[in-house]
């Protein structure tokens, strides 16, 4: 559906280097990365809103690299929603119809469906100025989908919303995608959001795509320390591999099998690390004695830092577990994790 080859963009503040990306028809694809990674630039390049230095962009079979934005069939929803302030909600939603030859009956039907699905009927005659964030977001979605685009680009559409509200909108977004045959490409830097919405993603940093794959791949098998760090793999250690073991600091960690793609790092997700008062003996487990050096409150869970030898492991624990194990700083404790929870790269 979208095929990007060797795309380079050099603008004053933003650069993209050698971007290659394939996104399937009707896929929900996620673009992740820190602020300034070039995610919005990539979206705008696909929409034709910024000049391309070299490389190509295909949509379907068509090379659109030099095509003006209005002929691409690509809608975009910005983080700030960018509704036209001088038009009512109804006029905003139907704005694109001025430029598309869509049969009146069909457009009326699309309009009614979008208004109903996005629950907009009560604000149709209002202007954007006094709408809430959620309302603005829904209007922007309706406006973008009204013209039956092939591709919908979403630039952090949820980040400006209240957290409590986000989940509901997220579910709405998923439904909207399922009910349409539009290809969604969404930028986010919230990993939980990405996991719940999509199957495949690309990770960007400094104007480059550094990993593309399934969510599972990126989440569990990052191929660089940057991605590992970004997806919350807090236990990330440089290691030397010897047979089925990894040596890091003064620890010998059992991997269960010889690493296939070991380039000197091991990573373990903090939720895969189990704390216990006694040593857990199982052939699949690594179990080490250590001391708790810090406990930090993250609201729904706690993060504990456990010093084992000269290495600090991070583990996520619930409040209940914290109380049960009577954990405080200085407590002696065992950290255990399965060999299969260890990712090497």
């Amino acid at each position, binding site marked *: 559906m979208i095929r990007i080859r060797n795309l380079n963009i050099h603008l004053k503040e933003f650069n993209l280097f050698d971007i290659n990306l394939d996104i399937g028809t009707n896929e929900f694809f996620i673009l992740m990365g820190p602020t300034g990674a070039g995610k919005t630039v990539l979206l705008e390049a696909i929409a034709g809103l910024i000049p391309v230095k070299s490389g190509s962009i295909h949509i379907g079979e068509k090379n659109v690299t030099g095509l003006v934005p209005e002929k*691409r069939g690509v809608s975009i929803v910005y983080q700030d929603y960018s509704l036209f302030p001088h038009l009512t909600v109804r006029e905003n939603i139907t704005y694109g119809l001025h430029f598309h030859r869509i049969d009146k009956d069909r457009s009326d039907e699309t309009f009614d469906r979008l208004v109903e699905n996005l629950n907009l009927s009560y604000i149709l005659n209002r202007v954007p100025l006094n709408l809430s964030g959620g309302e603005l977001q829904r209007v922007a979605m309706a406006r973008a989908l009204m013209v039956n685009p092939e591709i919908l680009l979403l630039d952090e559409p949820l980040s400006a919303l209240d957290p409590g509200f986000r989940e509901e909108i997220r579910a709405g977004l998923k439904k909207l995608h399922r009910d349409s045959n539009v290809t969604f490409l969404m930028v986010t830097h919230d990993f939980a959001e990405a996991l719940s919405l999509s199957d495949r993603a690309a990770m960007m940093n400094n104007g480059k795509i550094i990993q593309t794959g399934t969510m599972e791949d990126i989440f569990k098998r990052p191929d660089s320390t940057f991605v590992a760090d970004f997806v919350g793999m807090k236990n990330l250690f440089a290691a030397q591999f010897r047979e089925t073991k990894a040596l890091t600091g003064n620890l010998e960690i059992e991997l269960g099998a010889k690493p296939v793609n070991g380039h000197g790092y091991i990573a373990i997700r903090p939720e895969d690390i189990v704390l216990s008062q006694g040593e857990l003996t199982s052939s699949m487990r690594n179990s080490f004695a250590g001391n708790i050096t810090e406990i930090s409150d993250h609201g729904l869970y706690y993060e504990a830092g456990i010093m084992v030898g000269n290495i600090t492991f991070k583990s996520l624990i619930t409040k209940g577990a914290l109380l049960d194990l009577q954990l405080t700083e200085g407590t002696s404790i065992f950290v255990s994790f399965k060999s299969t929870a260890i990712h090497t790269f």
Partner: protein
Amino acid sequence: MAFILLPLIEMMTAPSFAMLKETIKDKDVVRSIWLSIYTAGLAALISFVFGTPLAYVLARTDFRGKKLVESIIDLPIVIPHPVVGIALLSVAGKNHWIGELLNQLGIRIMGSVTGIVVVLTFVGMPFYINAVKSGFESISPRLEKVSRSLGASMFSTFFRITFPLAWRSMLVGIVMCSARAISEFGAVVIVAYHPMIAPVMIYERFEAYGLKYSQPVAVWLVFICLTLFLILRILTSHDKEKA
């Protein structure tokens, strides 16, 4: 406040009604005030036509030497007014090829309405461009991008999105530009003493007949300009409430 108001009030209230009435019947006075207004209006119109695209480019793009261009645009604001007149004459005079060309085309700058309009445009345009530029800058480029992605051409986007959001700043620019143009004296007096615009006539009456005879003309000029600008202001603020 008093510093601004006192001299103005004093001037406005000095002439008697009879005298004001008599002055407005004076054909020369009416002609000069009318000339002032419509040359200033023309200057604003020219600024609108040529200044709008320039202001848009300045607001939307970033290029090497942009600061220099902006400083050049501001230049007419800082140069002493007679210098503006002298500068324009040196280009439009017979010793310069542009002056020669204009002469062959039958366009006279010296002592003509054309000359007045040129001078007023020169001094008024920076005010228009600056007002409209900041107007364009306040419109998020994303609105235009969204419009393009929804199928609108550059042209449609300008008329459906950018213009409706910027026209108020254009009106402000027109008011600023024509206000500046109407008040111009120094440059005009050098390029075109005749036909006489109102400030020149006020000066001449002051010189020839004294304070008493220049006041009524001044009162009429101030009064008419005030009314015109008030109407423009009301027009702009009216729409603001609607939006």
